[in-house]
């Protein structure tokens, strides 16, 4: 278990990054989250980055990796709360964050996860209990 707590709300995992993102911490979070998705059978992962003052290519790669790993584990990842200055900088840096869904805040993020899971289950593509 790393220094960044992972909370569970129903079938969603919530991570709020409140510290200056150290490279090792980013890698630990990736591992922790992957394990928790499997252990908790979570269907959604929400990562709140509203406290992050920058997202560089390393942190961007971590977000991409988490989204990719959770996808193969049948979970949806939504990144929420990106600061406007961070968004502007990310685009100029050239980091597209393809494959990472984003929402403005936690409320909208949860709603997005719910919608995606419901649509999958409605289509009969959900994971069996």
């Amino acid at each position: 278990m790393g220094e960044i707590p992972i909370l569970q709300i129903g079938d969603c995992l919530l991570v709020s990054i409140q510290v200056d993102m150290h490279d090792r911490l980013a890698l630990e979070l990736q591992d922790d989250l992957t394990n928790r998705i499997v252990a908790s059978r979570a269907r959604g992962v929400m990562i709140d980055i509203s406290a992050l003052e920058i997202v560089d290519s390393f942190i961007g790669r971590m977000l991409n990796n988490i989204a990719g790993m959770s996808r193969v584990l049948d979970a949806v990842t939504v990144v929420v709360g990106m600061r406007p200055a961070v968004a502007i900088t990310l685009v100029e840096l050239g980091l597209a964050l393809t494959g990472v869904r984003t929402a403005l805040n936690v409320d909208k993020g949860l709603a997005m996860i719910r919608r995606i899971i419901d649509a999958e289950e409605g289509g009969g593509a959900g994971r069996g209990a």
Partner: protein
Amino acid sequence: MPVEARDTMPVQSADDVVKVRQAVRARAIAAGFSLVDQTKIVTAASEIARNTVDYGGGGTLCLELVREGARRGVRLTFADQGPGIADLEQAMTDGYTSGSGLGLGLSGAKRLCNEFLVKTAPGRGTIVTLARWR
């Protein structure tokens, strides 16, 4: 160009990368940068600092608050004694990486700055100078 303040700090570890970000942020605020400009120079510094640690085997940062006429700016000089860059043109290409990154470090950092200069030769280390003006 007058230098109003100068600090030198080690760039040897991932911890130092975090310290570099904090120090550059403080200087950018002192130079009167907007939040977006602060974020750009700090992000660029983070990219180059990580290169210094990962590829250069560690080095130093010289962090300067500079003035040119009425303009103030932040100038960063990262120097390492590492293997240098054999093909700078290739290293500056988006998406090219010799490591495990995304290959955005040099090219991305350049886009975030007003001035960007790389001096390198195989076996002779790398010096990256970047500046952003208010």
